[in-house]
């Protein structure tokens, strides 16, 4: 209390200013007058009486200072003074200040942009949902390590059996065909449990949400909630949208409400537009038995811990519940347990992949920022030394060490915070650029990244951290200075600074780590662009269809594929046509399925797995993948031939030790196939991946209700085929849209998208960092040389050639630089070996980057050294 009152009082005094000063003067005058009177009474002469009174009172000014200190808040007053001073100092060195601020801003901006991604995935996995990071994924898990999802009945059971969780929410991804025949649009939505919106704590933008009782009786409530974006684009935000009918999968659903702005579902970064009660599943998906069939595991569950409950508790309850379900329903649940996972560990979606990639990127960028800090510290140090005399005067006039440090600190902090501010602006621009970049995969992807208070705090924190980092050296140097030494004419003292050299070495080390990382990244990106995918992407058009809403069965699916292919193959420009369930190099990856193959006994636990794709005959021709042994699949209408499979070279090598594969049987969970062919390896998940075993199955044996049409053109102008392909599909079934139409090359570009962002960052930042490092070295060396003008003059006067002088200066500085490069090089090597175990070390990068760095550094030393060696010895000796 006492402290608080005093503080407020002082704050008030600081603000009200000088009125009190007068009061003090009056009091002092009065005091001295009274004392003088007393002295007079004691018999002193008037002059002596006054003198004695003043002596007795003591130093008036010192007392006033004490008084002022007690009255106001010296800390804040000093700070304001420092700040004024800092602004003045900085405005006197605009060029240096701009270099420092901009380089810091770039470092901080890049880091903040990356952090905004990480924080989106870790802390705000669902935009518009408060406390979304508290939601956990409730995932049934199979023995093989897969996450099969939960069935509806299982969800109903778990709702009552997991007391540690409240509000378990179920949802299922569904593509919907929205509209009337001929004008069908494909839109993605979620089938949700009745508590979906209430558990997420959402408020509708207008209208209302699905009521719990609307998700009780199957097929009873034809209602739909639309996303804010959908409302905006389709209804122009008209309030009348609520109550209108939307034709979805040939059923009329009534729009009851609009979700809040930015809400895009529970599986970010996937973006959904429609939410329908899960009980509408049979009505919308052609009699799907999802609601009563326990083997149909299509739902994802999430839930939040009850207050006081722990994750471990939830995990244990979940395991127990799943064990009980496995006993009750062995057909559907045998061998299925459960795991509670954080959002970023989501088994579906790109989170897991992204987070590890982003973590590495963030690490490299933090190193870059450190290098920038080192550079700035060096520049400030060089500048600080020129200010020795100013500081010496301050100390001589009575400034404490701490005041000097705080002076330097405030200058640097101002620079750092300006840098952070500009960096945050860069980050805003960067995240917006990422937001609007198109991202279309099998599902619409939208990254709701933004710069919010979290990211802003991160930027400011980085700025403050940087400020402290690069203040430390100059502040210590100036504060330790002896004022007498400093006041004497400066340049002939302490020409060599150990701190400077160490700093230079550290900066170069950091720069070489970052540069090597950047070069490796660019190299891998470029080689990704150049390596052949081992199939022919040019001239292929892709387009997807989905019959899941059309009451599909095996016979109709097969028949549909046959008729579609017949029509497409009859087009004049089509050289070959095929249908496959998966396209290589998809952002979501290709499924890896378990199997057992005759002739291979697995020794370690688990199951043999291979990339698997289901394709029609003709697929290998379209893709340009040569069949090395055996033949292509049997014709789709062939009913006699037993089920077939085709494997790739890597499969034969890994699982059959290169033995003859043809004729062997291969077993999956449900069927047995005969291997009839071997094809060449190609790229499946990513460029530069190690060869993966793959199995292809035939549409004939495993008809699918959805597929990707692959068309190879004769003319090479594949985009011209799009409208004909669309028309053909529409003729066959007017309710089916052809969606995601793109060329195979475009598809591949999308896969590279996630890599392209960091590649571009590095392409810009690498040279920038090199330039910064060179600038830093140049500044330091030219400063050091300038301080040694006289020494150099003496050397020259005694007959040293200018070449010798240049060599000596370069040798002195290159020592620290070489050490730095070597350490950075080693560090980069260790990191690279750690990040890619057993990967090849790229000799070009590991030799080239240090060479370039050393060359640039030598040049940065040479220029000032040469200038110094050119001076006239006489002028140098007369100097000062």
């Amino acid at each position: 209390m006492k402290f608080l009152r005093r503080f407020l009082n002082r704050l008030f005094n600081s603000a009200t200013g000088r009125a009190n000063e007068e009061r003090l003067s009056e009091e002092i005058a009065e005091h001295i007058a009274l004392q003088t009177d007393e002295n007079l009474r004691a018999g002193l002469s008037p002059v002596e009486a006054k003198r004695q009174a003043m002596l007795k009172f003591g130093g008036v000014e010192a007392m006033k200072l004490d008084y002022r200190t007690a009255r106001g808040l010296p800390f804040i007053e000093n700070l304001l003074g420092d700040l004024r001073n800092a602004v003045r100092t900085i405005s006197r060195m605009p060029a240096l200040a701009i270099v420092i601020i901009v380089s810091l801003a770039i470092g901080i901006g890049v880091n903040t942009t990356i952090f905004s991604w990480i924080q989106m995935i870790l802390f705000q996995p669902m935009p518009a949902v408060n406390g979304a990071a508290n939601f956990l994924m409730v995932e049934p898990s199979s023995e093989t390590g897969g996450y099969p999802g939960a069935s509806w009945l299982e969800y109903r059971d778990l709702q009552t059996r997991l007391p540690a969780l409240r509000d378990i929410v179920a949802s299922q991804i569904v593509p919907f065909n929205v509209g009337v025949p001929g004008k069908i649009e494909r839109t993605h939505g979620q089938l949700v449990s009745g508590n979906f919106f209430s558990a997420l704590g959402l408020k509708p933008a207008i209208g209302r949400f699905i009521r719990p009782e609307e998700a009780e009786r199957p097929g009873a409530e034809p209602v739909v909630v639309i996303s804010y974006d959908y409302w905006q684009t389709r209804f122009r935000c008209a309030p009348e949208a609520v109550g209108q009918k939307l034709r979805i999968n040939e059923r009329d659903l009534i729009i009851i409400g609009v979700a809040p702005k930015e809400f895009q579902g529970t599986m970010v970064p996937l973006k959904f537009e429609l939410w329908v009660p899960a009980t509408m599943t049979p009505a919308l998906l052609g009699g799907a038995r999802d609601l009563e069939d326990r083997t149909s595991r299509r739902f994802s569950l999430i839930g939040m811990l009850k207050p006081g409950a722990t994750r471990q508790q939830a995990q244990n309850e979940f395991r127990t519940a799943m064990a009980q379900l496995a006993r009750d329903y062995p057909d559907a649940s045998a061998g299925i347990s459960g795991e509670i996972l954080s959002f970023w560990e989501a088994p579906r979606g790109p989170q897991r992949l992204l987070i590890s990639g982003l973590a590495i990127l963030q690490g490299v960028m933090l190193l870059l920022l450190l290098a920038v800090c080192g550079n700035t510290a060096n520049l400030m140090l060089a500048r600080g030394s020129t200010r020795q005399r100013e500081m010496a005067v301050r100390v001589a006039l009575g400034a404490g060490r701490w005041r000097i440090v705080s002076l330097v600190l405030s200058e640097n902090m101002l620079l750092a915070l300006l840098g952070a501010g500009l960096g945050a602006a860069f980050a805003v621009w960067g995240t917006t650029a990422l937001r609007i970049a198109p991202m279309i995969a099998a599902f619409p992807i939208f990254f709701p990244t933004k710069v919010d208070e979290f990211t802003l705090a991160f930027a400011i924190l980085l700025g403050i951290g940087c400020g402290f980092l690069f203040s430390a050296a100059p502040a210590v140097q100036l504060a330790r200075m002896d004022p007498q030494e400093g006041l004497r004419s400066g340049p002939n003292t302490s020409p060599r600074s150990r701190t400077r050299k160490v700093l230079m070495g550290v900066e170069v080390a950091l720069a070489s780590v970052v540069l090597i990382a950047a070069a490796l990244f660019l190299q891998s990106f470029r080689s990704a662009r150049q390596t052949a995918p081992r199939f022919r992407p040019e001239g292929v058009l892709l387009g997807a269809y989905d019959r899941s809403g059309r009451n599909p069965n095996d016979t109709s699916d097969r028949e549909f594929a046959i008729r579609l292919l017949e029509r497409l193959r009859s087009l004049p420009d089509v050289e070959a046509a095929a249908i496959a369930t998966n396209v290589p190099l998809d952002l979501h990856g290709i499924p890896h399925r378990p199997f057992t193959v005759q002739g291979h006994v697995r020794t370690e636990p688990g199951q043999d797995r291979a990339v698997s794709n289901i394709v029609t005959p003709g697929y290998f021709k379209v893709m340009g993948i040569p069949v090395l042994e055996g033949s292509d699949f049997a014709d789709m209408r062939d009913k006699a031939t037993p089920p077939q499979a085709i494997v790739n070279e890597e499969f034969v090598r890994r699982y059959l030790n290169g033995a003859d594969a043809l004729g062997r049987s291969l077993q999956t969970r449900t069927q047995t196939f005969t291997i009839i062919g071997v094809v060449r390896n190609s790229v499946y998940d990513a460029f530069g991946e190690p060869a993966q075993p793959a199995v292809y199955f035939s549409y004939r044996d495993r008809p699918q209700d959805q597929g990707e049409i692959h068309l190879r053109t004769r003319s090479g102008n594949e985009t011209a085929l799009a409208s004909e392909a669309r028309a053909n599909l529409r003729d066959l079934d007017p309710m089916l849209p052809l969606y995601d139409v793109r060329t195979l090359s475009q598809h591949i570009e999308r896969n590279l998208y996630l890599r392209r962002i960091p590649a571009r960052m590095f392409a810009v930042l690498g040279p920038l960092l090199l330039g910064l490092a060179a600038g830093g070295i140049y500044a330091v060396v030219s400063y050091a040389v300038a301080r040694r003008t006289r020494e150099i003059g003496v050397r020259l006067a005694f007959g040293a050639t200018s070449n010798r002088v240049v060599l000596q200066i370069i040798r002195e500085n290159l020592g620290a630089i070489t050490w730095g490069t070597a350490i950075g090089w080693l560090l980069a090597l260790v990191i690279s070996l750690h990040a890619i175990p057993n990967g090849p070390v790229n000799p070009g990068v590991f030799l080239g980057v240090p060479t370039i760095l050393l060359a640039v550094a030598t040049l940065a030393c040479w220029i000032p050294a040469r200038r110094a060696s050119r001076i006239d010895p006489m002028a140098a000796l007369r100097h000062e």
Partner: protein
Amino acid sequence: MKRKQDVLQGTLALMVLKTLDVLGTLHGFGIARRIEQISGNLLAVNQGTLYPVLLKLEQEGAIASEWGSSENNRRARFYRLTREGRKRLQIETQDWEQTAAIVGRFFAVKTEDLS
């Protein structure tokens, strides 16, 4: 050096409070003279140090001040003890006596007493 000043400042505050307690409302010079009379030479050197202490006490609410006129009809600042100040004086007096007693006892102990 700084510590010694702190001790002096602390005791000075206590002396001010006690003076005002005994003599009632008083101006700065009066307080200084009274302390000087009682403490001998302790404050003879720098009477000025009194004023920051007065300010601190006023900010803490232990004393209050107002303008008035002094014996020779000059404007002077008069200080008086507040209720809080009285309470504080009581507490600090007790504390001081306790501390003094303990320290006194320590000084009284001689080496031979311990053997």
